[in-house]
């Protein structure tokens, strides 16, 4: 008879695996408060909040944060629009090329970031578009659409079409049905998809290295910092901040879509 209690080895492997996944994140949390200027030694000699003040007084840090927030907001907006349109088009319809459309949406995250990045860069060069915030947003929106699409189509699939039929039967026109039935129903899926897209854009680095030109988003700023050992305490503080900005939306998205068949965040 197979016992239902997990063996000690299995429990150790599972909880050990979780520890492995979280340990580096805890280290980032710890080092942000490190008193030392060369933040490599372990264990830390003391803890301080001093570096937070220093980091937020730095012009380049603030500029990178502001650029990343703008890019993520714009990319999320475009992704929400295009992703919702695509989901509405593909829900409950069958048409020639439907499979290709859904494949096309997934392609930017299925292909390595270097491919997307270089493809966009060479297209921008050919048409003489100067790299800048616009080109970064185009790159980010391209791979964020599928995140929103996945969330919205999952919600559509759980929506009973009879609700929409009932609304129409009761005399509502297409716009009213959309405004009072479809949109409220999609609400939390849009919010969850938007937050995931925001987190994905805020953190993206591989496509961005190709499309950013001289602009520096927060991840690019961090990458650049790694070759500057004197700035380690400030890098540590910003690293903690970026970590929180990317992790917290995931928690929120999880609670928004909990209870459905499709829980947001299961795929990145």
């Amino acid at each position, binding site marked *: 008879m197979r016992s239902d209690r997990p063996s000690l080895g299995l429990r150790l492997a599972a909880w050990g695996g979780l520890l492995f996944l979280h340990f580096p994140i805890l280290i980032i949390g710890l080092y942000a408060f490190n008193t030392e200027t060369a933040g490599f030694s372990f264990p830390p000699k003391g803890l301080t909040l001093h570096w937070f003040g220093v980091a937020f007084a730095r012009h380049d840090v603030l500029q990178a944060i502001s650029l990343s927030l703008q890019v993520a907001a714009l990319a999320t907006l475009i992704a929400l629009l*295009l992703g919702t349109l695509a989901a509405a088009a593909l829900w409950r319809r069958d048409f020639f090329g439907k499979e290709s459309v859904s494949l096309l949406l997934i392609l930017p995250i299925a292909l390595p970031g270097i491919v997307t990045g270089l493809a966009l860069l060479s297209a921008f060069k050919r048409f003489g578009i100067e790299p800048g915030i616009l080109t970064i947003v185009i790159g980010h929106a391209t791979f964020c659409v599928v995140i929103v699409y996945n969330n919205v189509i999952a919600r559509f699939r759980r929506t009973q079409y009879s609700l929409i039929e009932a609304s129409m039967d009761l005399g509502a026109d297409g716009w009213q049905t959309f405004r009072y039935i479809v949109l409220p129903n999609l609400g939390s899926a849009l919010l969850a998809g938007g937050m995931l897209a925001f987190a994905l854009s805020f953190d993206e680095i*591989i496509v961005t290295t190709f499309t950013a030109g001289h602009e520096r988003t927060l991840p690019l700023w961090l990458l650049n910092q790694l070759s500057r050992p004197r700035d380690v305490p400030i890098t540590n503080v910003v690293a903690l901040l970026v970590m929180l900005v990317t992790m917290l939306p*995931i928690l929120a998205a999880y609670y928004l879509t909990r209870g459905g068949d499709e829980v947001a965040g299961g795929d990145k």
Partner: protein
Amino acid sequence: MATPVTAQPREQAGPVRRFADLLYRKPTLYLSLLLIPPLLWFGVIYLGSLLGLLWQSFYTFDDFSMTVTPTLTLDNLRALFQPANFDIILRTLSMAVAVSVASALLAFPIAFYMALHTSGRTKAFFYIAVMLPMWASYIVKAYAWTLLLAQGGVAQWFIDQLGLRFLLESLLAIPGVGGSTLSTSHLGRFLVFVYIWLPFMILPIQAALERLPRSLLQASADLGARPAQTLRLVILPLAIPGIAAGSIFTFCLTLGDFIVPLLVGPPGFFIGNMVYAQQGSIGNLPMAAAFTLVPIVLVALYLSVVKRLGAFDAL
């Protein structure tokens, strides 16, 4: 089916209403209006750039004048098989395979425990605990590992505390695995890759195991199978689609990565570093484009293999 109530004559139908009615009566028009914006973006901007890039891989780059001319040639594709370039491809490919295998081995017990031995709150806790590190900033995770692996860093402190220094040194002495220090070794780079992509392997395996009918386990036990036999003959075969789905992420993401190889490990390019260097400092866009063909072809081949294992049903 709904009767088209809106088709009945109405007084003072506003433009919005008339437009909504038009869309309702002409589903094809409605569909095209919905599809045009995303198709313009993906069909024109994205697919256009992609095809343009592939086309560029046939252009000629003149080494002396450092300029690109649109004369079509197969030289760039041939150059991929030169020993120096082929080494880069092999190095990247072998890392992607090693990372996928190790992730599967590490992920399986976690996924197994999550699927079969947790429920309710504990299951939700595990799910979030796997999802948070997956979404946490990629660059910060890579950075955290440079702190962990550095000389005098956290990893070394723990190894010294446990008195395992000799073990580390003998590991680092193995050619092809080691290196001079942990942060400049193949082992270090491998660890970082496994860490970053591990959650992408856990979740598909867990999903596959959740779908495993519990009655099969009981039947197996009733028929006299020992737990190890049940695992090998019942659970593993049914987990294969999940493992294959997870390996799509670990394999493809490692193949295209160039930040981790930049930060951790011995010198020597990965495909991504080569693409970046060729287009950037050298300005040889055709060669960079030819190099992007490698991950595209490898990913396509890989997908066609794992598709047979049922990976797409487990995504």
